[in-house]
């Protein structure tokens, strides 16, 4: 029963069972359900329920992350199928993200990347200790709309300014929105270095990214 398996997919995301989501996605495809239907009627409703429960305070961050993992596992199965059918899901934007040179803090940045992915952004996570030139190359390569720069130390925060300056020097600043984050980063720092967006946590970062893309 197609509707039954789709609601099982939905439930597996809500229950935080990524492996089951993955198996059910395979099963649904094998039973002849269109990938776009699996996304729209199975996966998206699940992510929406998780999102609503999070917003109401019932779910915690690990619920979101585990659901996002299930979503990713399913999409890894479905994306080749979509490509084969010349179909695509609309993405709100492409993001390049990383922790600046000299700084190896990862968790906050990865959380932001996960949350952006879960909200449909196409995310390229360059990891930690990322040289400025690597950011610039990747932005050009994937034609990113947004750059996310993380720094956890007062001494590495200054690299955020340097990357922004490098973007200006390369003539790339006009078309790119820059978001900054990390424990010592503040709104006044964002203003001082001429970044476009700042948030204190991962959910805030998703909101800011959407605003920067003109989506409310």
């Amino acid at each position: 029963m197609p509707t039954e398996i789709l609601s099982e997919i939905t439930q597996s995301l809500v229950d935080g069972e990524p492996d089951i989501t993955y198996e059910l996605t395979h099963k649904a495809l094998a039973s002849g359900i269109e990938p776009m239907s699996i996304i729209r009627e199975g996966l998206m409703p699940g992510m929406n329920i998780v999102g609503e429960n999070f917003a109401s305070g019932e779910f915690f961050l690990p619920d979101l992350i585990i659901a996002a993992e299930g979503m990713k596992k399913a999409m890894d199965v479905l994306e080749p199928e979509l490509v084969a059918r010349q179909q695509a899901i609309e993405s709100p934007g492409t993001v390049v993200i990383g922790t600046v040179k000299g700084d190896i803090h990862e968790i906050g940045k990865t959380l932001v990347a996960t949350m952006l992915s879960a909200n449909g952004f196409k995310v390229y996570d360059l990891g930690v200790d990322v040289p400025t030139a690597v950011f610039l190359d990747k932005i050009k390569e994937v034609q990113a709309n947004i750059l996310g720069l993380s720094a956890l130390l007062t001494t590495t925060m200054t690299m955020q300014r340097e990357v922004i300056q490098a973007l200006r020097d390369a003539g790339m600043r006009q078309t790119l929105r820059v978001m900054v984050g990390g424990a010592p980063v503040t709104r006044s720092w964002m203003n001082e270095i001429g970044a476009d967006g700042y948030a204190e946590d991962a959910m805030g970062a998703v909101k800011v990214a959407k605003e920067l893309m003109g989506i409310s």
Partner: protein
Amino acid sequence: MQKIKSISNPKISLNILTQEEVIRIHTATLDVIETVGVRFPSKNALEVLEAHGAIVDWSKMVARIPGYIVEEYLKMAPPVYTLSALEPELDLPLDGHHSYLGTDGCGVEILDAFTGELRRTTKQDVREVARVADYLEAIAFHWVPISAQDCPPESRSLHELEAIWEVSKKHVQTESIVTEREMSAAVEMASLLVGGREELRKRPILSIMECTFSPLGHDGGSLEAGMIAAQAGLPIGYMTMASCGSNAPITLAGNLVVGNAEVIAALVLMEMVAPGCPVYYAAAQTAIDLRTGSYTGGGAEDFLFGAATNVISDFYQVPLSMGAFATGAKEPDWQAAVDNSLSAFMAVSTLADMLLGAGLLHGSRILSYEMLFMDSEIWNILEATFKGIVVDDENLAIDVIREVGPGGNFLGHRHTRKHMREHWQPTLMDRRPYEIWQKNRDGAKEWARIKAQQVLHEHNPQPLDVKLQAELLRIIASIEKS
């Protein structure tokens, strides 16, 4: 003469972990260090570890240290030593009988004492906060409370030290040096102030705190800086801030194992580099906020860690520097008072040697002078509380009770006058009549701010000799990029 208010030989204690539970945590920790390993991203550190029997995976920079080696080197750590001050009366013996309070670090914003404006911190702010901390008896030693963000990144930590030394003779424990280069310069600066390297070894006026990199790792620069400090005889500690749910297991016991593995593995490295060097355990474990994933500070889990960690550091017979007072509150308010009172109470109840955290808000990000005074008041309350209740003839006061008898009062009795000054006296608590309060509706926050302003106007401790200061600045300049 300047005094320091420590909490000594407290009469109140707390049972938080049984000996058997501590041994289980220790055994689990040795298992993790031996079989999973700890990441030491420093060639120097790994070479030392390998030469002393650790199994090193060079591609991952992970060292797995056999348990017996961990235990052998931990035994070399001296159980008792003194944190020296530029003024010997301000020395802090870490002898297992005292708890001392220090400032917090390292904030990035400050609420201006005069305008109330929230702004980024500068070297001048470091100097001024140090002056206020110098004035407060509750504050036994300085941490670098806020970052001197107007100074170059490569020498900022040294400017912070210099700013504190300019205005205070209390012991300094810095948490902001993260490179070998800065540490060598800091050793040189401290040596200059005490009259040479050998003298510094005898009288370490500076101790060093480095952060671990949870889970189960370290920062290369911090390790290399630590090894320099250990060789110079500066007390060195490694602080875990393992957070339940993000870089440590969600369960508290699991967090203790991860944090413990990081800390003791680093202390073992220090003992390998400089056998017998003074080391300490440092910790500020916490739990992430489950809704934002952020470090917030405060809460029940923090309180439990605050008490449990000293039991663990006691097991290893090394002093503890414990993060307390680390409220997530945005203002010096109800939340701050609850967090800071309980976290300090729990840490003192197991006699943590050093407590950190006075003066910062919003998870150690924003310095508030008001909070610094309020935290000192909390400390004073604890100091009085931990004296406990003395039960002897004089205190049982049977003769006095007999004299006053049923229906009398004790207000005018000599015994009352004799002992009344043993009672704690508030400086910020409001005990006035209601109608007096109604006139201005003021309270702790306003009074604390006025006191801070007064101290900033009036407390100008004997400044550092200008020649010495010039020498310190010369050392700092020598490592700055031109």
